[in-house]
């Protein structure tokens, strides 16, 4: 007998790939065979990656970082020395001291004879024809080597000679000017030779760049808010000692910046400070859940349609792991392709958008900056989402029963009460967690856990909600019965789809609840600075400041026939108030110049209406909410003292005994206190400084638009305005963007699930057509499918969203603070249910989606559809 010994089998070299070749081949074949389904899954994964990649690139490009701004700030210099606060400079101050608060000699002592460049900024009126605008102006030497990079020339040239200026796009736009026009500035004509931007002025605002030899501008009395920044070009980078010395010399009035420090500052994070890790983690988890739920049905359908193949694999020896790999391989391959295409397309989209942006807003964007880390993160999230989406179908595939699959039996369908109970408990726990945290510490980490628990709870309830559609369908007409039955019987597909809609709708409802509550809270607690529809225009001191008469003219031009009243203030001095009988232990109350009136001013303030009787006999009105420890001024008499200092250093003190009248509420006239003309005369007298527009009787009450126009007109003349605007809800773009994204997710989830249903249930649809359903009936069934998915998902999402929305609203609306009145405190929280959004989620969107699906879904031709999709119409020809 001969014995044959077979040689040992060679061990596979790549152990990691063992067992994957057949699953990968099957996955590839299935993906190719069912291109529409594969495309749908890839879209669900790839689209968010595309958007994230595009957004990250656009934001990074638009975010002009410190290092990118360095040339615009320092030119080719190393250090800037500039004043902290702009101050009105006396004429010719630059030549004498430099207006930085540091003299040139002091700078020279520290940095030697290093080249320096002074950049003087200020405000001045510029006019073209009859148009006049208060413009910022920058006066320097554009041709200086240090100035390289300070200005971004958009058109024409930089000024090189006296009488030339470059203008900002904002100024040209405001005056309707062009290159070559001559502007009237400070009684002289300056010709526009170019258009430029600079870091020293907002490009959208009017500003001019003038050559330094146009020094009469610097010396002009009409130049207000003038300040000088000195840029120093050191031979070697500034040392800490030099910077310290400059700072020490300038004291608190100067800011010293060094280029080295500037460039060492790391760029801002992509989204500013960024959310807390807990909030970011929660958001990331929710995004992955959402994407997985959106893409999940595609893999579920894939498993259902491959069930026969899987059973045959199993019958031929494939174990559960191999079966699972078939689905996971598909997810991995589709996910990888989707993120690759998504990321590439996202960057391409960003390139297009930024190119377009550069044409529309020249200079507004930095160089194209692709945030590879963000793109990579989005890609990883995409692939992880695909794997999570395929996990449940893969598990199902691993459980494939050979007998069941080959016998076309799906097994019994029960009601997943136990899972739902766990879900309800999780939901209750999440609610309690949020309730506890938002009413106490409000820690983000635990609140995030609460939100996740809520979400998981609702997702666990979805299978029961879907299963309950089975008996519900019994009493519905055929169209809805087919739709509900399909959802209930094909739970592996419909649960994920409805979960996706519920999660998205939950986010939408949560944000809507929060924003609606905040809006309701702001509306209910809104306090205007003045009675609604009134305004106070203040005259400004200084050469360019407007007089009260000028302001009155300006106001009448904007709002003719509106009642105006002139109000004075006590002459400039330091005013203190000390209660009578209070000895030295009393701290005086420092107040600004009192408003002076015989009473009418009080009529603009509801709580302090008609103060004329109080102001008589040396009365002094003081609002209760302006000062702390105000009760000591509640009644009785006090001494009001005005102290002034003469240029020679002498002090003048005038006092008057006044009768105190504490007024509960605000005295919204722009002054701390009010006195009568008699009282003012007994001190230092009064000067007219403001006009009140409108009165409390509604006469001449202005609309918000009129108030804005009025403020603009007053500003044009150098005055400032306080207005009493009616409440206007602000457009909360952040909320709107989140809500729009949620709506897109609801729509995507519903349409994707419906499309998959139509694909998966083609045979059933064909049979229904064969037994006599009209084409419209089949379309209506498709529409009903969308309706069922959207409504069930919407109902669950509404429940899911209301809880965190309410708790978040409660946290944010239980404290009222009106800073201008100094009023604050805890109040009853405002909870506003967003009924319109709920109606949209439960009625509007489902009906709209059902209509769209009904209109676009193809009604299968009875025989053709049945044949193509496997309905056994006969074994013959």
């Amino acid at each position, binding site marked *: 007998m001969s014995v044959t010994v077979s040689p040992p089998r060679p061990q596979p070299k790549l152990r990691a790939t063992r067992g994957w070749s057949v699953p990968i081949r099957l996955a590839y074949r299935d993906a190719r065979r069912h291109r529409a389904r594969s495309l749908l899954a890839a879209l669900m994964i790839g689209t968010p990656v595309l958007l994230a990649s595009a957004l990250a690139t656009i934001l990074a490009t638009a975010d002009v970082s410190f290092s990118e701004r360095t040339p615009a700030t320092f030119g080719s210099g190393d250090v800037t020395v500039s004043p902290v606060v702009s101050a009105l400079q006396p004429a010719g101050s630059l030549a004498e001291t430099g207006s930085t608060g540091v003299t040139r000699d002091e700078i020279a002592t520290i940095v030697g004879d290093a080249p320096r460049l002074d950049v003087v900024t200020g405000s001045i009126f510029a006019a073209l024809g009859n148009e006049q605008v208060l413009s910022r102006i920058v006066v320097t030497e554009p041709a200086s080597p240090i100035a390289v990079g300070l200005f971004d020339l958009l058109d024409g040239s930089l000024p090189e000679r006296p009488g030339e200026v470059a203008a900002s796009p904002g100024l040209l736009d405001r005056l309707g000017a062009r290159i070559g026009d001559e502007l009237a500035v400070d009684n002289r004509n300056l010709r526009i030779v170019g258009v430029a931007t600079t870091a020293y002025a907002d490009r959208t605002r009017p500003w001019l760049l003038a050559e330094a030899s146009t020094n009469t501008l610097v010396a002009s009395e009409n130049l207000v808010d003038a300040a000088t920044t000195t840029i120093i070009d050191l031979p070697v980078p500034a040392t800490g000692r030099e910077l310290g010395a400059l700072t020490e010399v300038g004291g608190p009035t100067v800011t010293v910046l060094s280029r080295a420090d500037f460039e060492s500052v790391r760029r801002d994070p992509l989204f500013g400070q960024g959310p807390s890790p807990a909030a970011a983690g929660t958001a990331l988890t929710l995004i992955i859940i959402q994407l997985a739920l959106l893409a999940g049905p595609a893999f579920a359908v894939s498993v259902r349609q491959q069930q026969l193949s899987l059973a045959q694999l199993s019958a031929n020896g494939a174990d559960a792991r191999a079966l699972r790999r078939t689905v996971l391989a598909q997810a991995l391959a589709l996910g990888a392709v989707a993120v690759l295409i998504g990321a590439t397309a996202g960057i391409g989209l960003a390139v297009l958008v930024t190119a377009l942006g550069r044409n529309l807003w020249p200079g507004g964007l930095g160089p194209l900056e692709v945030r590879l880390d963000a793109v990579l993160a989005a890609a990883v999230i995409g692939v992880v989402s695909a794997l999570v989406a395929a996990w449940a179908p893969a598990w199902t595939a691993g459980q494939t029963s050979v007998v069941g699959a080959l016998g076309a039996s799906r097994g019994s369908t029960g009601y997943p009460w136990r899972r739902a109970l766990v879900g309800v408990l999780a939901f209750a726990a999440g609610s309690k967690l949020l309730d506890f945290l938002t009413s106490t510490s409000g820690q983000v980490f635990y609140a995030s856990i609460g939100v996740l628990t809520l979400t998981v709870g609702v997702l666990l309830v979805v299978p029961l909600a879907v299963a309950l559609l089975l008996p519900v369908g019994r009493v519905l007409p055929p169209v809805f019965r*087919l739709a509900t039955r399909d959802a209930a019987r094909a739970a592996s597909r419909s649960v994920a789809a409805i979960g996706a809609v519920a999660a998205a709708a939950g986010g939408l409802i949560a944000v809507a609840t929060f924003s609606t509550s905040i809006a309701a809270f702001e509306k209910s607690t809104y306090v205007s600075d003045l009675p609604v529809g009134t305004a106070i225009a203040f005259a400004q001191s200084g050469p360019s400041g407007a007089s009260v008469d000028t302001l009155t003219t300006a106001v009448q031009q904007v709002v003719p026939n509106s009642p105006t009243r002139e109000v004075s203030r006590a002459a400039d001095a330091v005013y203190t108030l000390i209660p009578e009988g209070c000895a030295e232990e009393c701290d005086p109350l420092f107040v600004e110049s009192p408003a002076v009136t015989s009473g009418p001013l009080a009529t603009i303030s509801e709580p302090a209406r008609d103060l004329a009787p109080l102001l008589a006999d040396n009365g002094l009105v003081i609002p209760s909410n302006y000062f702390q420890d105000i009760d000591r001024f509640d009644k009785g008499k006090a001494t009001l003292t005005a102290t002034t200092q003469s240029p020679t250093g002498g002090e003048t003190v005038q006092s008057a005994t006044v009768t105190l009248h504490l007024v509960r509420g605000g005295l919204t006239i722009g002054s701390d206190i009010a006195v009568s003309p008699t009282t003012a005369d007994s001190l230092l007298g009064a000067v007219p400084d403001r006009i009140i527009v409108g009165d409390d009787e509604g006469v001449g009450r202005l609309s918000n638009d009129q108030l804005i126009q009025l403020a603009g007109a007053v500003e044009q003349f150098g005055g400032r305005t306080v207005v009493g605007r009616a409440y206007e809800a602000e457009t909360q773009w952040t909320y709107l963007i989140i809500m729009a994204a949620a709506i897109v997710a609801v729509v995507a989830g519903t349409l994707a699930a419906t499309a998959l249903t139509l694909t998966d249930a083609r045979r059933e649809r064909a049979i229904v057509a064969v037994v006599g359903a009209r084409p419209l009936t089949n379309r209506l069934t498709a529409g009903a499918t969308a309706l069922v998915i959207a409504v069930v998902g919407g109902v669950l999402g509404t429940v899911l969203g209301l809880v965190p929305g309410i708790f978040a609203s409660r946290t944010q609306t239980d404290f009222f603070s009106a800073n201008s009145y100094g009023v604050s405190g805890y109040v009853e929280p405002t909870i506003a249910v967003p009924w319109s959004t709920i109606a949209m989620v439960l009625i509007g969107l489902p009906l709209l989606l059902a209509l769209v699906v009904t209109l676009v879904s193809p009604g299968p031709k*009875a025989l053709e559809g049945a044949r193509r999709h496997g309905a056994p119409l006969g074994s*013959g020809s």
Partner: protein
Amino acid sequence: MTDADDVTDTADVDRSEVLVRLEDVRRIHGEGVNRVAALDGVTLHVHSGELIALMGPSGSGKSTLLHLAGGLDVPTTGTVSVLGIPVSGMSRTRLAALRRRWVGYVFQDLNLVSTLTLAENVALPLELDGMSRQRARDLALLTLDRVGVAHLADRFPEDVSGGQRQRGAIARALVGDRRILLADEPTGALDSATGDEVMGVIRALVDGGAGAVVATHDPRLASWADRVVFMQDGRIRDVTSAVASTTSWPWGTANEDTGEIAAVTIDDAR
């Protein structure tokens, strides 16, 4: 199953009425080298009160003929009329109405809507035609009772056996006032005794005035027919009276793959 004679009365049947008329019908599938004549010049009339058995090997055109007769397909040339109306001129909506009201169709297998119970499947054509849910269900239960699966009315197709599923499908084809029954191997999944019961139900329907065409490979089932039509290569090769041929069967059972016919007698078949 109830006795078919209890529910039908053959006395008043007008057997001259032609329910389905196929005149020189050709049905071509594909183009060029893939061009196949599934039916090639077929003329056949199905009369009221007549049960026709279609026999022949696979690919002979039986199913195509049934599709055309049921308004599921239209001929390439020739005319197909159902209840006197040419199907070629009917809209899809009218064809659907035809299938709901007058034509019952039984497929070979897996031909029920999987998401509906047996009763709901049977009631579906009635409900689609506007009948109330309860009335349609009552009629469906009656019909299911006729085929012997009323006790499974609320089960889903996948939860019953193949034979029970097939009976449900037959019940759906029978329900209502169907004038025409078209069946493609209707008893393929049934044992012989149940198959006979199903054919008994079809026979009773026909005796009540309906017309039926049953495609089958089984000579024993063909013996229930008034006429047996043998097809091959898309043409009708012969037509004979099954009742008249009690001693010998000229073609026997066709092998589904090869088309070869084994000689059997009708008595053997019974």
